[in-house]
């Protein structure tokens, strides 16, 4: 366990040192968040930001609903895009093989690579929530921050598991952009990022209810707005924890298989 923590820390230190050279990109990211906040504010004003019956289970406020969804989606898409970038930059940069001749297991190398993107995604989420409160006076006064932290922690773990699967696919098919676009698109469509899943046609609702992230987002909104049926946060936590524990080992195994395939074909470096 200590070894795992130290390896993750080594990746984090490496990526922080590397990113120190790209401070301006960070400023642009902040500007992007501010732009999104304003855009969603005007969008919700256009659509009418009064209490909406469709959003009653989420506190009833369209702007708050969209901000939480966007912040959560930002976290997921940053993590998944981060996985894509991490694997591809190791392949293109020529460091992939240098990593794979070390004694660190492949799943830990992938998790290490997405550590900083996950933290950046988390930071973005915090900035969205803080911006919404400070500039647009969204009231988080009733939020259960303990539940929010637990849900986010488990959502991060769940996303890291998805990251292992994405990495496995990238190694096999060599181009991961399509995979990440499909995944982030499916998450936006099905998990209730911009609208409650109840507005979806029934077959899509069933699909949405099969996704742990739907429950994570629902739980997050309920924890932040203190709305919805009691016990739903607990269910969301259980679903996230259970699926992460169940999916983790098969995801690591699939990554191993993908690497074995690349070792057989000789395309570990991605060419």
């Amino acid at each position, binding site marked *: 366990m200590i070894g795992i923590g130290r*390896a993750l820390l080594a990746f984090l230190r*490496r990526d922080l040192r*590397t990113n120190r050279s790209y401070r301006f990109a960070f400023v642009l990211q902040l500007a992007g968040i501010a732009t999104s906040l304003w855009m969603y504010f005007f969008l919700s004003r256009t659509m009418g930001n009064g209490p909406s019956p469709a959003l009653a289970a989420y506190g009833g406020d369209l702007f708050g609903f969209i901000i939480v969804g966007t912040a959560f989606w930002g976290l997921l898409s940053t993590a998944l895009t981060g996985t894509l970038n991490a694997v591809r930059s190791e392949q293109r*940069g020529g460091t992939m093989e*240098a990593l794979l001749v*070390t004694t660190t297991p492949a799943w830990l190398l992938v998790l290490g690579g997405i550590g900083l993107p996950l933290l950046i995604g988390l930071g973005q989420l915090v900035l969205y929530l803080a911006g919404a409160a400070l500039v647009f006076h969204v009231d988080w006064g009733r939020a259960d921050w303990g539940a929010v932290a637990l849900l986010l922690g488990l959502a991060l773990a769940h996303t890291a598991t998805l990251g292992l699967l994405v990495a496995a696919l990238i190694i*096999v098919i060599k181009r991961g952009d399509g995979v990440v676009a499909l995944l982030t698109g499916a998450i936006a469509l099905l998990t209730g990022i911009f609208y409650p899943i109840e507005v979806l046609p029934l077959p899509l609702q069933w699909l949405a209810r099969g996704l742990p992230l739907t429950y994570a987002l629902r739980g997050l909104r309920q924890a932040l707005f203190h709305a919805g049926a009691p016990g739903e946060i607990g269910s969301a936590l259980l679903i996230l924890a259970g699926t992460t524990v169940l999916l983790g080992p098969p995801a690591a195994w699939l990554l191993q298989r993908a690497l074995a395939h690349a070792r*057989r*074909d000789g395309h570990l470096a991605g060419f």
Partner: protein
Amino acid sequence: MESDGNIKPDGPPPAVEIQGLGKTFPAPGGLPWAARPGKIALQPLDLTIPAGQALAILGPNGAGKSTLLRILATLLQPTRGQAWVTGLALAAGAPVRRQIGWATGDDRAFYWPLSGAANLEFFAALQGLHGAAAQARIAQVLDAVGLAAVAGTAYRAYSSGMRQRLAIARALLHQPAVLLLDEPTRSLDPEAAEGVRRLLRACCESGQTLIWVTHNPAEAAAYCERVIWLRAGRLVADRPAADPAAIAIPWQAEA
């Protein structure tokens, strides 16, 4: 000694033992589950390398030299045969990688914005070296390769020779039994190349086994005990380096 499938059971093991090892790359365009055989990179090869020996591998481009090295580094899966490093089968994974130090001639294999020391610190952590022990070892290998004075300089500012030496430093970090060296003096000026050769010879004299891919027969003769030649994936000569015939191109000598 207790035996599992990854440990070769009988006697003290040589540094490397290779039995019938071969590699055929699948033809391009095949599906992952229905690969068709394509290019033969390495014909079935048998080779035993005793501990502490410096073995040079010579041969033209495409002879299978780097393929052999990459199989031993666990970066390629052989199509046939087996190999053991210090008695551990390649399939053992991490335990066998602990015995291997891999120095590639590819100067892209580092993080360019980071300093030499920061690069080594990162790779040391992935080899299980942390804290004061890691720092001491990093200082030791940087000193050994003559980069102590530029440890804090960004890798992107290193010359080719410095990059090559840093690759060797990384390979030495975890004190492996076997060093796999893919053209370690490629694109170096004569003085830098000589420094790298002397460093590698010192590693060998301290007990490490060297498997040294090179295109330079004189380098092979001067710094290794044994020279093998590969051609079209086949072993065509295996002689002591002291034998003057060892560095003559075998197929030209035959003609």
